[in-house]
């Protein structure tokens, strides 16, 4: 007989979400629903009627971990709608800013997943905040990497959490030669540290996934070799940056995109029939609690070619670098493999940056209501923003953010895993839940956004 277990709220990721799992007698997940329970602030709706300059600044604030992707995708969607080409040096500054954010975000994700793993060669799980070695040196390196990323972001983007330097038509300011030198120095230091960090993490990740059993709150849980496997496809729009509808060959196709609501995809009302007080920390939801993922989920289900897809580091590596490792292990390793490239790319962009070049377009049109979209590869995946700007007012705005793409895909990836490892699978997606709760469906009737949009 299947039983229902709920882990709520899930921890060590951004935002509020929960896992509702239907499991068999062996505790293996038959159906898993991962859903956001973050209140919907309605950024797409509140954007309507505002100026295209203000909306990206608000869009940035849907998420404090990948704000750069939102800010850039929103800005570039507006620019795509009004058909504004920005100067090359502004592009370089945006690239640097975007990579700097990824550098900090990977490090932050490392902090969040480390407690799942063991110090290699021991049976001790890692507490990233312990003052003891070898963990303390790793924690310091993580924080230094974050500091490097945030400082470079601050120079190129004005501020690193919510960038201040981006604007419609380019950037407010170019940087000085002195600032360029500082970015070089930091990037070179970051490159060395990222090598060490990626190596450490990959060793720790392999160690964990190669175990036959892992400990979860004192329970000995078998580790399947196929943890987190799914058969969904991958979507990525660039090896590191993004694409827009103004590109000669855009790498995303709005015609292949469709969106459904969780009502179609998630389970209906059920009652919790399995409760595990030992599950860390504070146990699972009480027996008898009513759950209803269909109604409670706060996001939509975006699809590409009619199915949910995976976005993120592995999707980028699969699409652009022939990476072929599946499952949670592959996903976490892919993220670490992007680390060095962050800095190699960044150094190339700093090389290409002319500090005396102009960074604002000469002419910024007011827009005629055309549809424009821009994708930005956030640390955790493809972030696509769609906009229509008419006469310097936003008529339509939509954000298809990475974790929204991943909600349904991850739900599939839960199948076949011991339920105690559901959070481990979920964390592999480096979820950013607050941003995920911002989708809208233009036409509630046919639940399809694309056809309407391209009319």
């Amino acid at each position, binding site marked *: 007989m299947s039983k229902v277990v709920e882990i709520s709220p899930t921890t060590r990721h951004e935002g509020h979400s929960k896992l509702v799992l239907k499991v068999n007698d062996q505790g293996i997940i038959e159906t898993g629903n991962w859903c956001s329970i*973050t209140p919907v602030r309605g950024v797409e709706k509140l954007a309507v009627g*505002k100026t295209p300059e203000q909306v990206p600044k608000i869009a940035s604030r849907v998420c*404090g971990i990948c704000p750069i992707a939102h800010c850039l995708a929103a800005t570039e969607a507006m620019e795509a709608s009004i058909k504004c080409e920005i100067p090359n040096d502004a592009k370089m500054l945006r690239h640097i800013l975007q990579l700097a954010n990824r550098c900090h975000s990977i490090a932050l994700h490392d902090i*969040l997943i480390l407690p799942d793993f063991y110090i290699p060669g021991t049976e001790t799980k890692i507490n990233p905040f312990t003052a003891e070695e070898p963990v303390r040196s790793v924690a310091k390196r993580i924080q*230094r990497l974050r500091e490097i990323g945030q400082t470079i972001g601050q120079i190129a983007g004005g*501020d690193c959490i919510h960038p201040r330097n981006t604007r419609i038509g380019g950037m407010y300011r170019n940087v000085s030669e002195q600032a360029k030198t500082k970015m070089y120095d930091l990037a070179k230091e970051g490159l060395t540290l990222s090598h060490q960090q990626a190596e450490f993490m990959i060793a720790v990740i392999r160690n964990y996934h190669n175990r036959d059993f892992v400990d979860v709150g004192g329970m000995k849980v078998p580790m399947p070799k196929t943890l987190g496997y799914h058969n969904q496809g991958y979507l990525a729009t660039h090896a590191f940056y993004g694409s827009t509808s103004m590109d000669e060959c855009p790498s995303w196709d709005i015609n292949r995109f469709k969106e459904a609501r969780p009502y179609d995809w998630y389970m209906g009302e059920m009652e919790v029939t399995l409760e595990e007080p030992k599950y860390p920390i504070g146990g699972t939801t009480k027996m008898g609690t009513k759950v209803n993922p269909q109604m409670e989920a706060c996001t939509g289900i975006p699809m590409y070619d009619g199915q949910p897809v995976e976005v993120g580091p592995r999707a980028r590596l699969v699409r652009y670098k022939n990476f072929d490792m599946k499952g949670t292990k592959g996903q976490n390793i892919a993220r670490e493999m992007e680390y060095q490239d962050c800095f190699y790319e960044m150094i190339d962009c700093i090389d290409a940056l002319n500090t005396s070049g102009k960074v604002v377009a000469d002419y910024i049109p007011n827009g005629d209501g055309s549809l424009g979209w821009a994708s930005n590869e956030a640390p955790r995946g493809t972030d696509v923003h769609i906009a229509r700007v008419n006469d310097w007012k936003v008529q339509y705005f939509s954000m298809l953010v990475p974790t929204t793409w991943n909600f349904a895909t991850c739900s599939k990836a839960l199948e076949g895993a011991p339920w105690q490892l559901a959070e481990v699978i979920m964390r592999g997606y480096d979820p950013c839940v607050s941003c995920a709760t911002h989708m*809208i469906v233009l036409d509630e009737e046919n639940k399809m956004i694309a056809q309407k949009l391209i009319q």
Partner: protein
Amino acid sequence: MADKITVGYTHLSGCTGCTVALADNYAGLLTLLDKYVDLKYMPTLADARHIQQVDVSFVEGSVCINDKLAVEEIKETREKSAIVVALGGCACYGNITRFSRGGQQNQPAHEAYLPIGDLIKVDVYIPGCAPTPQMIRNVAVMAYLLLKGTKEQKDLATAFLTPLMKLAAAGTSACFCELMTNVINQGLCMGCGTCAAACPVNAITMEYGKPQGERDLCIKCGACYSQCPRSFFNTDVISQYEAINEAIMAALQ
């Protein structure tokens, strides 16, 4: 360690940018956790799932009053914390959630958002979007001194925190308008340019030496007003800037 203060972190409708700001104390964060702060509850960084009894709660985000869980959480936070700190523009002043008006899938009824001060009594404000790592650090160290320090340290911490408590008492509304109504209209602006530097969205320029606010850019975070030297200036504390800065830096060594 018994002499640490216990700290909780409640995450409501915010973007986790405040959490990142806290983490952006880098190595200083590790020292804070080693010596002064026992982090009992924090959704992103710590593993605990439920709000706990603590000395100090930081609250990020505003409250969606159409979401039962959020309303329960803010009330529970107040009940279980000796000191509640509203962290960041959303918790203090609503910030971008002031613009929310609902109608969006999958919860079209999530339309009304309030700064936490409209639902509970808040003790200390840290405005700004994002708030700064240094401000969070200073408040954390001062909260530690207030609760665990000597008499002298308690006095200093009280003096330091007083203006932030007054901000909390003053209300839940702030944007560029506060610079106009409480500084310029009151004949207090002297054109130093602080507000323009503090604004996180480049909404303020200095025209002929006085602030011009692009109100279509302002996100209502309250940074410009609270950073302004003419919003509050507690001479007794700020004139000891050298000693206080040194003490904070030494505490984090």
